[in-house]
């Protein structure tokens, strides 16, 4: 049977929909442990890739609204997960229509996957209206909530939701990375080793490069970053976000890659410090949050965008070659304007639509980073070459 569920926003709006995935908490349950179903509402314009999006660690603390109306069409498969750890990924899913029919052999339905993974969903929402609202008034906080009885949310419940949302931390100034670390450790205790599962990558498909040892610092890395490195013959060691300079030295990598991840980069004092430190001696690269951390480490600033970039169709121009690539993106913060870049950094890539910074390089050091997701998953494969570029910089080319 179809169950009613509600989406409450911090501005007081209340949207009714139909539940799928994990059962959303009631407001009382949510008050005790506000995790599933609550977060900043962001819209993603990708027409495919809901599975990868749901399992992308960068979405911790966010409810993802898919602007494409039919979601779940082709089912789900754990092999597509960007993180296999429950709790590391989106906090909830908002859609216009969820597919509940048969999926191809060997896959499971979106409903069942989300149920297993503990992610609540709401369908039947006017996602376009909500998207336009976010576009005009910026991201809002919201929660997917089950009514405690019958199929309406009482006024008291709604009020309680709003209180809860008001108390819920703003994305700006929020450090989610440390929260992520806790979840990783908890998962490890339960025998779920993300590092291992991501090794299930196909064998190297690229021509022989010198086998580089890359330290991937985990702010919530997507499994496909690791896969792409392995495909290129790299040995990858995952280091936790809180790693120290000494620990990095101890494993002596050929290059360090700061991963993507959730939350506000500006508050990540430790990692910023680490980046400026190791940037002196190691080839240093960053993706998304990693890019922001590097930028901050070398004197740039970051800011919270109105509603960010979340989708699979963002054009990025390489300012050197003039080439434009279609990229996968997922970020709510960005590095402040070109004019504000510090001396040492130079602009590498720009968004062809809104001219925001998409990539930087260090003028002297072997340091480069990108705001978008070259590893795709989901999204186009146009910028996989960025990994080759990183590795070639690491090897002293450039």
């Amino acid at each position: 049977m179809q169950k009613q569920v509600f989406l409450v926003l911090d501005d007081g709006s209340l949207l009714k929909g139909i539940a799928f995935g994990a059962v959303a908490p009631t407001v009382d349950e949510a008050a005790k442990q506000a995790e599933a179903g609550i977060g900043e509402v962001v819209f993603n314009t990708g027409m495919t890739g809901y599975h990868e999006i749901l399992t992308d660690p960068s979405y911790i603390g966010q409810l993802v609204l898919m602007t494409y109306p039919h979601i779940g069409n082709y089912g789900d498969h754990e092999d597509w997960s960007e993180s296999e750890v429950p709790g590391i990924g989106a906090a909830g899913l908002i859609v216009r229509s969820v597919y509940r029919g048969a999926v191809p052999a060997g896959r499971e339905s979106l409903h069942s996957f989300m149920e297993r993974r503990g992610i609540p969903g709401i369908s039947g929402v006017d996602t376009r209206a909500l998207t336009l609202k976010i576009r005009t008034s910026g991201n809002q906080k919201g929660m997917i909530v089950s009514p405690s009885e019958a199929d309406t949310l009482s006024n008291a419940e709604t009020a309680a939701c709003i209180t809860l949302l008001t108390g819920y931390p703003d994305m700006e100034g929020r450090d989610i990375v440390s929260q992520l670390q806790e979840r990783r450790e908890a998962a490890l205790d339960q025998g779920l080793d993300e590092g291992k599962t991501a090794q299930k990558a196909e064998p190297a498909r690229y021509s022989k490069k010198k086998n580089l040892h890359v330290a991937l610092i985990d702010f919530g890395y997507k499994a496909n970053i690791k896969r792409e490195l392995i495909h290129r013959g790299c040995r990858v060691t995952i280091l936790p976000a809180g790693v120290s300079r000494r620990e990095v030295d101890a494993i002596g990598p050929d290059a360090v890659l700061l991963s993507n991840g959730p939350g506000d980069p500006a508050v990540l004092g430790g990692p910023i410090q680490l980046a400026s430190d190791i940037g002196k001696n190691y080839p240093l690269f960053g993706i998304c949050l990693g890019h922001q951390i590097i930028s901050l480490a070398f004197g740039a600033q970051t800011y919270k965008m109105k509603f960010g970039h979340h989708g699979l169709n963002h054009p990025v121009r390489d300012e050197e070659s003039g080439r434009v690539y279609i990229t996968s993106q997922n970020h709510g913060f960005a590095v402040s304007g070109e004019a504000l870049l510090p001396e040492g950094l130079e602009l590498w890539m720009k968004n062809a639509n809104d001219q925001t910074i998409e990539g930087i390089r260090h003028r002297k050091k072997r340091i480069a980073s990108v705001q978008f997701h070259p590893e795709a998953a989901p999204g186009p494969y146009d910028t996989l070459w960025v990994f080759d570029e990183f590795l070639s910089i690491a090897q002293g080319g450039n």
Partner: protein
Amino acid sequence: MPARQDISSILIIGSGPIVIGQACEFDYSGTQAVSALKEEGYRIVLVNPNPATVMTTPGLADAIYAEPLSADYVREIIAKERPDAVLPTMGGQTALNLALELYEAGTFSEFGVEMIGATVNAIRLAEDRGRFKQLAGELGIEVPNSALIGDLEAALEFKGQSGLPIIIRPSYTLGGQGGSIAETEAEFAELISNALAVSPVHQALVEESLVGWKEYELELVRDKADNTAVICSIENIDPMGVHTGDSITVAPAQTLSDREYQQMRLAAMNIMRKVGVDCGGSNVQFAVDPDTGRMIVREMNPRVSRSSALASKATGFPIARCSAKLSVGYTLDEVVNEITGKTVSSFEPALDYCAVKVPRFELKKFPHGHTQLGTQMKSVGEALAIGRTFPEALNKAVCAAEIGYEGLEELDMGYDGLDKMLETAHPLRLWAAYTVIRREGKRAIAALSTKTGFDPWVLYNLSEIAEVEEELADAGSLHSGSNSGEPGFDLLLRAKRAGLTDRRIARRFGMSAAKLTALRLSLKLQPGYHLVDTCAGEFSAETPYFYSTYGEIDEGDPLGSEAVLIIGSGPNRIGQGVEFDTGCTLASLSYRRRGIKAVMINSNPETVSTDFNISDRLYLEPVHPEFVQSVLQKEGIRKVVVQLGGQTPLNIAEELADSGIEVIGTSVAGIQRTEDRRQFSELMTSLGIRQPRNLTALSVVQVHEYAAEIGYPVLLRPSFVLGGQSMSVAFTEKELELLLHTQLEVDEQHPVLVDQFLEDAFEYDLDLLCDGQNVYIAGLMQHIESAGVHSGDSACVFPAYKTSTEKNQEMYRVATTIARALEVKGLLNIQFALKDEELYVIEVNPRASRTIPFLAKASGVNLVDAAVHVWTGGNLEELGLCTDGFGVGTPLEKWAVKEAVFSFERFERLDPLLSPEMKSTGEVMGSGDSLGEAFLKAQAAAGSTLPKEGAVFVSVHDKDKATILPIVQELSEMGFHILATRGTAEYLFTHGVFPEVVLKLHEGRPNLADYLRSGKVQAIINTPMGQFSQHDDEQVRIQAVKLRIPYTTTSTAAWATLQGIRYARTQQKLVRPLHLSKDLSRN
């Protein structure tokens, strides 16, 4: 980088007449290319002999040539205009092939013309199936196992290796022409020889069968800097084995995982790179094995296509326009996305809706076992609808296709019939699947999917529609008898969200649609309109392109009562094609030039009218009363234009007027007096105008009675039809009986009109403009074929070529009388027949007719603009079209001929005999100083080359022998070898012509068929003997069509052919641009 400065003028090649597989999508792409390049300051030369198009409207391009698309004529144009470059990618396969031919003939190098948009090499790589296969293989992309063959032996060898079924695809043809699936040993050899015969290079690809696989298309653009974007993905609902043009399709792709989609996307981009299309659009087609996910690339088109037009409308990204910009050196990030006005074109549209295309077939017109779809395209048009969900879009699209269904409805049919439809690729297969689901629910999905190859996702969505219908049925029956027999708000909302029309819902409650609509409105259940914005709401959009949905946000403020709504003509069909789209488009431009806001509603994605740049607002919605009314309500518009979109808008005029909407121009009462047979007869009688005698029969007995009373031959037509559908002639009582047996239904509900059939009469078309008082005869055209061949199928000549001035004057007078009596405001079309010096009115159409665009071009007067002038309160004298209340249009050159173009090649074994039922799909024009020149050009443009020498075959009915004699005599004097059947030969012999006697098919061999096949006949004059012609004649006609041998079926046509041949022998090839004789734009 800025646009190229080293070229200043560009030749754009159009696609010629509308045929199956090449329709008005190329008017759309060509028109976009013209405007995109003109605004860059280039001088644009256009060649396209299709007068029905928007692109050939004087004023759009700098020089427009309505001349044949053949190497010799285009060479003349190049010599005269000396363009620096030629853009061949906007005119379909026709333009590409022609460009290759000109290139190979050295014409481009001779005149220093550069090909832009696609290189010769790229065209060859993509089009040559063998080389394409090799190229894909080099990229590591799988292709179907296949072999390129040039003869039967090679084909047999392939069959030995791969076994049947085998797909046969001729090289260099369009719309899958000549392609087939060989399933049995018996048919293999014949199918191979057919394929080789239609291929201009006498080659075909034999290929492993992928029938039942999922079929996809990707639309791409790429610039010279190698920036590439996939604009749209399209998933075919019908699996492989049904031509994409005949498939119901949905955009974006629905059932590919991100990985599958990205791999397909990458493969498409790599193919485009490797083929070398580096400044324009392409499409790449794939097949995916539903069981294993194995992906195979099928083909690529290095040009814009029907699918790219569809993709442009489905996404809001104008592919042709963008491709044109890329062809002159821009890069994608330099081309602004006009929809958002902020973002650039190097991005991939994100949709937040589904766009579903439903093809439209003419199964009634092309019967005889052609119901099974295959690899050869058969549909004549298509409708696109957008909905928030697939069920909504699908139901809307079916409704928009105007094929007699209000949406995907249950069929009233038993399981035997349903199974047959499900197992073959029947055009109604999806309806059959829906019927089963409606009866059995979701549990039927798995088995249905196996049987049909429809993806379970599609069938599941059908089950959601079925569930809503079930609930409606329950609610309907629950309340029946009680007084609350109506749906509640929630149920009604669900039904509307599933795309069910009011009519369809009302049926479940046994109430009228009007009542249900009233109920719905009282519940405040109105559609909301969403913007098609290319970006799923991420950026605000500037271009107002809308679709409707229910229960969601409504975007855009009303334009208000000063605006006008132009009702489009819906999907192309025989009898209603691009000519009506041209009228609607020009009207919109004309209103806007006068500062009046124009809103367009139309469902045909191929058209210019559904380009978001044409109108102030565009609604891509079914041209159906409910959807039209909703748009009127949304915009607060009170005025509609119904005269330009053909019969479709006219049919809903009354309903709109009843609800208080003002029908612009001729009043609804005036319209009815022409449309209603009885009122029309009364009007003619009261004006003292002669009509063929006619009676309306309500039973079989009456038909016989009336036929006897009127006298044979009689013309029979069901009273409800349009476009001459199901009209036939009975010459004898016996033929009448047969017709009543096989083709006609008669009873009280289905009255049949019995008309006196005017045999051997001349037919005329007259179009006029009237402002209520002044009458401007836009043109009087005389048909070449006699009455009895539908006016849309007959060649026609402007001005009349064989009538006395008195008769012309009489027709003007009658036309003026009718126009004034009907108080026409705007356009009116009258068809006359002249028999034994007596004038009859056959029909009056209170609207723009098919011939308006032709006349506008042939006479150099923008007739639609003049009509809009009248509708906005002006008169015809101000325009200089009338003096003292009257005026007559004359041709720019001395003669203009319009010739009909058919798509008979699509339907093997179909007799191409012309009749009162229209069968042509398109038209071309030719003009010149002599009728011969104009006729010759029209024939050449229609694809038939009049011979300068060789042999002419003659076989005519006794009554035609005397008329034919002088024609044959002259041919013989010119040195033509005359062939004739025995009877005709004897007649000719006694009159001093000495023909060679050729055996009829049944008389032995070698016979006429052998002569035709071995190329011994260059033209045929064959007048048939009544409706049910001999099997022989039929075979000859079929052969002639296949071999493209000029073929005339009337003595007048033979005479015109003679004129053409005479001109051909002068070897002259003059080309002249179209121009305006009257500039109306100052008014």
